[in-house]
């Protein structure tokens, strides 16, 4: 079976906007979600700015009942629930405890970790010889598959319900795994997405690795600078994005709004050989991943209108652009449009790929390119590969047909997704 797969629902909990209307407005206007973080400052982090979705209790109560919110301390699951349930509702699919199991719908909802704050609470209690006082809430909030399990219960998902994990490629990978499942006829609908916890216990490891910027603590909105000559490391972020993938057949039958078609893609790894390591990409593998994605999608690389890059604002941005250029065989004025959402939201780690895919789908659906903020000083090595006009610093309204989105992660893993406007 080779069923066509389309996107019929979107949801997001991003640092610069929770919910699709707020997020769409934020990315069009180039609004930064990076703020000073008092907790990071108190803990003496080098990087004291971060991106965190704003989720007041009144909003939490729309996704969790008061009992579920008692002793709830897993912000990654919360962000994932908001994005996932919103995408489901956006696709006009039913919700509620009275629903029968939906055997044709499942979820592959990724995470990098789960409930680190909750786990910390539990560790303190266990070490204080108080394991008997942990109660019932630790396991569902700290198991790796927590987010898919919560979504499964909320939405009566009765097909495959699982969580994937591949560092910063998690979100792009989840979409390709869900795509495969529908394409092969194993499910009609799959909720694809990913989430990342927020907070010092997630971000500390990156601060320790010295990969986060420490130069913008007094000017948070200017801190995340993908493709800029003055980029000095990424800004840690968090949040979740979700895409309801559905067979074209099922979408047409339901009369659903179709945001875009997923043409396919590719995942691979550089095996931590050559230039690749646990933390650095093997360029041969990156180029191969992009080429194989183009091949799998059955398109011509020359027809790609825009790239939504991984582009984290570390020293590796120019190398990524070079890899795109080699893989697609396009340079200068012939280079596709290129933008990086991390300038506005920072690097949302395991949540990044899916938040950025939501942005890419919105661009196709509405016909625009969001601006690259904090890139007024485009890196000269990048300008030598791609004509600066192809790296919009202002919002552009433009009909787009094909977008390529890639994410790369620790472990030398890569994923590239090809999206097409549905006509």
């Amino acid at each position: 079976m080779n069923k066509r797969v389309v996107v019929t629902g979107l949801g997001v909990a991003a640092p610069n906007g929770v919910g699709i209307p707020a997020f769409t407005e934020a990315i069009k206007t180039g609004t930064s979600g990076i703020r000073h973080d008092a907790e990071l400052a108190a803990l003496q982090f080098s990087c004291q700015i971060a991106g965190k979705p704003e989720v007041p209790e009144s909003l939490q109560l729309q996704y969790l009942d008061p009992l579920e919110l008692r002793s709830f301390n897993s912000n990654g699951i919360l962000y994932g629930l908001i994005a996932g349930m919103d995408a489901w509702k956006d696709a006009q699919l039913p919700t509620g405890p009275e629903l029968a199991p939906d055997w044709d719908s499942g979820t592959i909802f990724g995470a990098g970790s789960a409930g680190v704050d909750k786990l910390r609470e539990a560790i303190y209690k266990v070490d204080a010889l108080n394991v008997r006082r942990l109660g019932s809430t630790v396991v569902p909030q700290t198991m790796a598959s927590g987010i898919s399990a919560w979504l499964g219960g909320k939405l009566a998902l009765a097909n495959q319900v699982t969580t994937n994990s591949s560092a910063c490629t998690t979100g792009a990978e989840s979409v390709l795994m869900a795509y495969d499942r529908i394409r092969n006829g194993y499910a009609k609908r799959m909720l694809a997405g990913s989430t990342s916890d927020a907070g010092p216990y997630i971000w500390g490891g990156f601060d320790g690795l010295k990969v986060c910027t420490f130069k913008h603590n007094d000017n948070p909105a200017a801190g995340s600078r993908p493709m800029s000559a003055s980029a000095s490391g990424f800004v840690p972020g968090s949040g979740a994005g979700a895409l309801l993938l559905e067979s074209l057949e099922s979408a047409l039958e339901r009369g659903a709004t179709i945001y875009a078609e997923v043409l396919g893609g590719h995942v691979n790894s550089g095996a931590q050989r050559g230039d690749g390591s646990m933390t650095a990409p093997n360029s041969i593998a990156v180029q191969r991943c992009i080429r194989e994605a183009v091949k799998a999608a059955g398109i011509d690389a020359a027809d790609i209108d825009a790239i939504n890059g991984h582009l984290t604002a570390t020293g590796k941005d120019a190398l990524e652009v070079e890899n795109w250029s080699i893989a697609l065989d396009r340079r200068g004025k012939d280079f596709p449009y290129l933008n990086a959402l991390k300038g506005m939201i920072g690097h949302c780690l395991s949540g990044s790929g899916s938040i950025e895919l939501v942005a890419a789908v919105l661009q196709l659906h509405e016909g625009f390119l969001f601006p690259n903020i904090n890139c007024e000083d485009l890196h000269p090595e990048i300008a030598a590969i791609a004509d600066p006009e192809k790296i919009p610093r202002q919002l552009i309204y433009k009909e787009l047909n094909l977008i390529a989105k890639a994410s790369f992660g620790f472990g030398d893993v890569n994923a590239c997704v090809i999206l097409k406007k549905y006509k």
Partner: protein
Amino acid sequence: MKTMDKETLIAQLKEIVKPYAKDQDALQNINEHTDFVKDLKINSANLVDVILDVEEQFNIVIDNEAMEHMLNVKSAMEIIEAKLGGQ
């Protein structure tokens, strides 16, 4: 505390189980014969939370064996009274 009457104890238990009870009618009619899971429709995983809240409220420690029996109002009252009486 030793001379706490049944009505008061049931009222206190009612407050404790309130957030966990899915059947509000059964909660309103709570009595000695009410079963936590069958009548109040408390999720069985939440029974441990009910026990922890009882411990906190009455400042007692309920051992594993007693916990296994604490499935309804009657057994909860007996366990609480025994603990309070033994103090």
